[in-house]
């Protein structure tokens, strides 16, 4: 694991690095260098398996983080590449030519996070949603509960408890009586 991280630092001057386990690490990469790094990792360092691409929304720092998870079947190590995108108009270089399944991941990310991947085939097609008009649902500022209550005719009678208080009441009813 350390070997590949050293190589990455030498070649691309990448900082910072977060090492999780002996066989898993996450590194943060500049947006435009990513296809280069991915191609190098895939073709020369045996990180041949792309496990997934996903995104994490950080509205407090106005960024969306993309995570590309690679796996090396010889050393059995995971390498997560993180890319931070601007949150207002997120746009990323498409890597659909590297792996066949990438186009679908990018289609999903476009739909769920509103990230644009220019040039990715079939990007504008629906993945899971159909006729979605609201803001992309996986953004943090989209409130699914509010949307559901507004749209889907909730059946009246649902009660919501604060779990902490409710469990205290349920488990120790005597404590309440004492008060």
């Amino acid at each position, binding site marked *: 694991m350390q070997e590949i991280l050293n190589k990455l630092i030498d070649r691309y001057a990448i900082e910072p690095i977060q090492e999780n386990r002996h066989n898993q690490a996450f590194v943060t990469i500049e947006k435009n260098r990513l296809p280069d790094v991915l191609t190098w990792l895939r073709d020369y360092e045996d990180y041949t398996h792309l496990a997934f691409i996903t995104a994490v929304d950080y509205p407090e720092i106005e960024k969306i983080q993309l995570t590309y998870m690679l796996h090396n079947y010889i050393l059995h190590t995971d390498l997560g590449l993180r890319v931070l995108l601007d949150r207002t108009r997120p746009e990323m270089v498409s890597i659909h030519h590297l792996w066949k399944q990438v186009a679908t991941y990018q289609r999903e990310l476009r739909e769920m996070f509103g990230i644009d991947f220019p040039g990715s085939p079939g990007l504008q097609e629906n993945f899971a949603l*159909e006729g979605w008009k609201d803001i992309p649902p996986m953004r943090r500022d989209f409130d699914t509960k509010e949307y559901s209550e507004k749209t889907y005719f909730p059946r009246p009678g649902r009660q919501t408890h604060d779990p902490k208080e409710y469990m205290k009441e349920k488990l120790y009813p005597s404590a309440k009586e004492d008060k």
Partner: protein
Amino acid sequence: MDNKEINNTKLANEGLSEQDRPLFCDARPQSYKPLGKYVEKFLNWARANSLWILGYGTGCGAIELRPLMTARFDMFRWGLAPRPTPRQAGVFVIGGYMSVKTLKRVIRSYEQMQGPKFVIGLGSCTINGGMYWDSYNTINRLDHYLPVDIYITGCMPRPEALIAGFNKLKEMIKAGETDGQNEYARNFDWYKANQKKIVKDWNMPDYNW
């Protein structure tokens, strides 16, 4: 939901393009009157003893329909059988949660089924959303979109619960209490408005074809 007089105005079929519109049916669903008392009773007996389930697993509830077909529970004993096409099926088992995308297909399948037809809501998700009550993509109450005859609660309902549900449905059919198709026809506008509220791209005819 008030039982208004059926109006016989044509359906607009607004979701279709200009050139497709003449190809599709624009008649409203009609409610049916029962035949003579004893004839209807006999036919209801036959209907109750030969329930054909539409083979559409809309959600995770479909997984308990498989054991129901096999040796352990053997639903064929009660005259229940799966049927692959909606034209021939009579019972629609909504297997749990329903996403908006599925709901659109479910409405089509339901409208393609020929009456008398019955709907079973399987699992808590069809009653009030269940586990997914706050999800942005699953409906909360099935009875706002389709007339439901019977609900089976649980997540998952056990096959025994399903059998009990089917037996209850049979009793209701024999007693002539299942009026789902007529209810759908009577309150057609209300159901359509609810359906169109959540199915955003309505690119299909309003009823059947």
